[in-house]
């Protein structure tokens, strides 16, 4: 199921993931022990919500390539954490909420692992921790005697308490997620947090309000509320799945398009992908937004397609050997072809200036995007270090350093220095 994550995302050490899993496990075990000691209340609800969380975890999917989400599991767990009212004799206490959520989450991961699908313990524990946080907040702000008695004097404070609880869950999740992105992809923390908060405002809000509706509904009419929320959620998830698969097809179409230069003999095998990998690493280092990152990756992949219009391949695909006029003409042709497709407008803009030297381009023209400078540097570095030419990274860095400010954007060269220094290799 895991969508093709952006290039460069496969460098996955666990790192702080160990801490997240550890925290989740400790919290889960303690909650379970305490629940077993005090006894379980309201079995039908435990069974139903446990099942929902497990199934929801089983049908998780990835948003925009790398962000893993399980809407049904999240909504169900949040709802279970915020029950209270007339149909339940007693609402489950915080430890029981944690124990049920933890066990059900793990139970949902087992079939995935057996089926050979991705089963990411780190993300699952992240979800569990944020739900636990919501349960604690909700229990802390709601007084004992407040329940769903069909009067607005009770309903509105309950709603506010629920919103506060889901908000805290969302913020915790965003902070942890941003920390993970910083560690894994070397994105500056503020930029990573910004991206996580944007996702939280979209999908996160939908999941949270699903949980709020389910909690209110189940408190009022019992388990009949479950299908009322889950069926629409499933429908939406189904639509989203189709969207994700269309997106995958689109991405691979662009990648195949990039490979056409290799088949035509204009570039060496894998050259486009290597250039794109480096461009993505640079973009992450500079903290670009996800939308811009995507355009950057495509532009790096497609930066060579304009060459197809030139007569015949140059040996070894080293476009450094071509004259500047030819390279710029190829970039221009490539950009106009990409532009005519009508979807990759921003990509076309990046490609158009990807061969402009910094001094004649970006230095005096703020309209040219920094991405063009990134692609330019990535292309140059790939040609020095990539297959065939095989210079050492230090030597290549030195050559590129000589062109700083004239040929290459100083900001990007500094970023390259950092990325290479952290051990980036093709």
């Amino acid at each position, binding site marked *: 199921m895991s969508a093709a994550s952006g290039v460069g995302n496969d460098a996955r050490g666990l790192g702080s993931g160990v801490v997240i899993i550890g925290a989740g496990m400790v919290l889960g075990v303690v909650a379970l022990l305490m629940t077993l000691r005090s006894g379980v209340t309201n079995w039908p609800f435990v069974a139903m919500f446990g099942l929902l969380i497990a199934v929801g975890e089983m049908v998780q999917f990835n948003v925009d390539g790398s962000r893993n989400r399980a809407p049904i599991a999240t909504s169900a767990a949040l709802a279970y954490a915020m029950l209270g009212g007339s149909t339940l004799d007693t609402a489950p206490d915080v430890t029981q909420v944690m124990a049920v959520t933890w066990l059900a989450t793990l139970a949902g991961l087992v079939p995935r692992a057996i089926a050979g699908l991705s089963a990411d313990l780190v993300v699952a524990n992240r979800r569990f921790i944020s739900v636990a946080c919501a349960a604690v907040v909700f229990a802390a702000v709601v007084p004992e005697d407040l329940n769903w008695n069909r009067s607005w*004097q009770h309903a509105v404070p309950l709603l506010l308490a629920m919103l506060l609880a889901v908000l805290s869950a969302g913020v915790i999740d965003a902070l942890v997620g941003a920390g993970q992105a910083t560690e894994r992809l070397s994105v500056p923390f503020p930029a990573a947090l910004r991206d996580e908060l944007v996702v939280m405002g979209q999908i996160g809000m939908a999941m949270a309000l699903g949980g709020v509706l389910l909690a209110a509904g189940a408190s009022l009419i019992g388990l009949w*509320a479950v299908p009322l929320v889950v*069926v*629409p959620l499933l429908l939406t998830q189904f639509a989203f799945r189709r969207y994700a698969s269309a997106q995958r097809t689109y991405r*691979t179409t662009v990648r195949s398009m990039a490979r056409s230069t290799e088949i035509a003999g204009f570039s060496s095998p894998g050259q486009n992908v290597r250039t794109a990998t480096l461009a993505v690493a640079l973009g992450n280092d500079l903290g670009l937004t996800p939308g811009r990152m995507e355009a950057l990756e495509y532009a790096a992949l497609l930066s060579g397609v304009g060459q197809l219009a030139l007569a015949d391949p140059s040996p070894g695909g080293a476009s450094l050997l071509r004259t500047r006029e030819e390279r710029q003409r190829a970039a221009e042709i490539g950009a106009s*072809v990409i532009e005519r497709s009508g979807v*990759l407008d921003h990509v076309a803009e990046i490609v158009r200036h990807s061969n402009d030297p910094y001094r004649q381009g970006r230095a005096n023209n703020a309209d040219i995007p920094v991405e063009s400078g990134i692609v330019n540097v990535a292309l140059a570095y790939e040609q020095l270090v990539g297959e065939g030419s095989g210079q050492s990274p230090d030597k290549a860095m030195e050559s590129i350093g000589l062109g700083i400010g004239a040929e290459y954007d100083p900001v990007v060269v500094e970023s390259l220095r950092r990325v290479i220094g952290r051990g980036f290799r093709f």
Partner: protein
Amino acid sequence: MSVYVIAGPAAAVVVAGIGALMQPRDVPLMKRVHNTSQRILSAGGGALTYILLDAPVGDGVFAHPFQAILGVTAAGVVHQVVNAVLMCMVLSLERGVTVVISFIREVVVPTALPMLGYGLLGVLMAVVWLGGLGILAGLLVMVPLVVARWALTQDEAERAAQAAAMRAFIEVIETKDLYTRGHSERVSQGVGLLGRHLRLSADRQQALEHAGLLHDVGKVGVPTRIIRKPGRLDDSEMDAIRLHPARGVELIGNIPFLEEVKSAVLHHHEKYDGTGYPAGLSGTSIPYFARIIGIVDAFDSLTSTRSYRPARSVEETLAILEQDRLTHFDPALVNAFVHVIRTRGWVAAAEQQPAPDNSADATVDHDDMSLGSGGGASGSAAGPA
């Protein structure tokens, strides 16, 4: 939907009527009256169902949640049926029966389940509304609906983006040769026409159109000087040309298409008598899509201008196809294609192309496949298959 539960069936009909009055002013009056009455009738059908099932109204929902869910779902079904029947009546009066069938297949059936599913949110909204939140419940329910709508429109947008990316892909390939410009698009349209005539299912139809669009993408691996070369190609150059189907598959191999797309790209130059390339398959062992594309590909090449000859007329080309029916192509498919073109017409490429360069030797393009050169076709006595 939630109105049934909150305020009762009669109110639902009134709401439907009021909602219908809020139509844009630029819609003609006749249409507005029709839409309004249609909505009221549909809602009326739903309301009657709700009453017949004796489903709860107001606080009764807390005692009988299941009856409320059942009532709303049944009302939703009736509402949709009434709506569809009315639409079908109008369409059949205005445009005939075939439109009605396609309307049912493309609009009514795919939307039926989602409508019922999202109708359940209405019950939930009613429950939460009566549970003390009032209008706030409406705001809460709006969010899942907005997200659902977003997911559905995104899907559409992403499909459009993918189609555009593929077109760009083709444009890149076709920069190499003025004379093949637009060829892939036209072949895609041609196989689309034929596919619809053959009543393919929706995803196979789409796969066929993709295959038609991408069938020549491997040409990017053929050196430009060979593609543009006027005059006869020698054996080594012909070998380079013969590689292009395999190159094409190599290029699109990672895109998650149906397998049929890849096999069609690989085998679109096979001939029915087994003399084609790359594998020399014959008869029905040639993949179905490849047989379709082979016909349309040849048809478009012949009706286009090439550097060494002017375009042929559509009629002339159809005659050639029929003559070569038993050697090159699947006879049944040729008949179907000829029928489609004769009834639907064809916009030939010749208008948009440069004039032929008469100084070149008359020779044969790799797509022409020695068509109509008198060879082979002797069995024209055989009737239509």
